[in-house]
């Protein structure tokens, strides 16, 4: 997209917002259509392809035995990585993750870790010696905005389909990965005191403040991240948190609970 077209597009969105509208007709707190396809990668222990509007994120889970961390000798290990491959956006470049990819991976990780979604105690093989390592690999395929929420959704959806490959390593029968909570990340941007959830890529461009709130099944907050070079008033933050809890509940119930 040339920069001239992009300026025109920005103005268009800007003017819409002033009229209380979004380019695709959504309400300010409305998510784009969500679809989750599970178990799409047979070589992975678990996987999910999440579509959030036109954004596409594929998450694969691989597991293997390994050493625990010294300060938690009886617990499995989670390692989260995100690849913002250049296939997914003209702004992504080949090479090791930059600060945007690192932040995304760390916030996805924070949601899974701090919600205690995975029962890590159940992943101890030999206390202090051998535990299960869970690799959560986030592969962004198409960045049409809000890939963080899509990646978080993909991570928990993939974990929910994960089978621990114990037999492959001679460690008994395979078993379903024990998942105890379902953290949901919801992201809003602020622009001219308007709060918009699930921003698309154009909306992300014009706003310079973003807040992600991760909530657990019982409605608590387990992770937050403000990003961007703008400011938020406390009242705006509280408003985002209120709506985020609600939205997360809807998404959780609709897509992830039996």
């Amino acid at each position, binding site marked *: 997209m040339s920069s001239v077209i992009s300026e025109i597009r920005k103005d268009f969105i800007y003017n819409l917002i002033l009229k209380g509208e979004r380019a695709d007709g959504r309400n300010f707190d409305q998510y784009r259509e969500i679809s989750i396809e599970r178990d799409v990668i047979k070589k992975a222990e678990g996987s999910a392809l999440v579509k959030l509007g036109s954004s596409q994120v594929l998450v*694969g889970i691989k597991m293997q035995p390994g050493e625990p961390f010294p300060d938690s000798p009886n617990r499995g290990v989670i390692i989260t990585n995100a690849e913002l491959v250049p296939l*997914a956006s003209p702004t992504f470049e080949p090479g090791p993750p930059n600060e945007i990819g690192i932040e995304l991976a760390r916030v996805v990780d924070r949601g899974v870790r701090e919600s205690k979604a995975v029962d890590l105690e159940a992943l101890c093989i030999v206390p202090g010696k051998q535990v299960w390592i869970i690799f959560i690999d986030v592969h962004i395929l198409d*960045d049409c905005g809000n890939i963080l929420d899509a990646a978080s959704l993909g991570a928990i959806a993939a974990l929910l389909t994960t089978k621990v490959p114990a037999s492959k390593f001679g460690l008994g029968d395979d078993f379903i990965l024990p998942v105890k909570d379902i953290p949901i990340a919801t992201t809003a941007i602020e622009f001219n005191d308007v709060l918009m959830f699930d921003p698309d890529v154009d909306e992300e461009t014009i706003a310079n403040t973003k807040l992600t709130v991760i909530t657990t099944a019982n409605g608590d907050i387990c992770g937050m991240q403000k990003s961007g070079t703008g400011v938020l008033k406390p009242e705006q933050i509280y408003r985002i948190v209120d709506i985020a809890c609600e939205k997360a509940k809807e998404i959780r119930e609709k897509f992830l609970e039996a």
Partner: protein
Amino acid sequence: MIDMDENDISFFKDGLRLDGRRTDQLRPIKIEVGVLARADGSCYIEMGGNKVIAAVYGPREVHPRHLQEVTRAIVRYRYNMASFSVEERKRPGPDRRSYELSKVSREALEPVILTSYFPRSVIDVFVEVLQADAGTRTAGINAAAVALVDAGIPMKSMISACAAGKVADTIVLDPMKEEDNFGQADLPIAMTPNGDITLLQMDGNLSPDEFHMAVEMAMKGARDIYEIQRRALVEKYSQLEAPTVEVKACE
């Protein structure tokens, strides 16, 4: 080629291969055109158990500038495997194998791209292997060629890629994982519809006669794949108002 006692493995049963194919039969192929919103062109392909997606960006500006060519576009090709695409998790990022495959795949496509139309610019081809099952380089080239058309890049002709192999002293088309791991030879090619070879690699062991047979069989496979690529593009673009220049480009 992993070196196993090949007698232990029987690659054929009742004259058919382990997955029920004849020796000269391709695995099932599915091609979808234009699957990504951000890319200028894209294609998703399944060849047997392989799941591969290709995107094309460009022609666009080259950074850093000293890479620019005054008389033509440069072509870049990045073959990349997702960490979860293989049995044992792969560390993210390129390894020596992916550098080599990126090079030969780029050289498989560059002969048909009309790079002189776009001096000082770059055409970027990105291929992500989401699930690997023997033949990812040929699947990637097939997807990339379709994505180039989808992106409207002017091309002299289509490129189609396919491998032949040798298992239990028999030449077979489009080897699957088991045949690739425990077979005696692997020979991937890429070519234009009129039989110009743009990629040729081989490892294993083939007598000159077997080599001839394998090349002919791989070329037959590539011709079949060309028909599938063509059909996928026609299907995509016939839904639009009128046939576009790009579709012509691949006829």
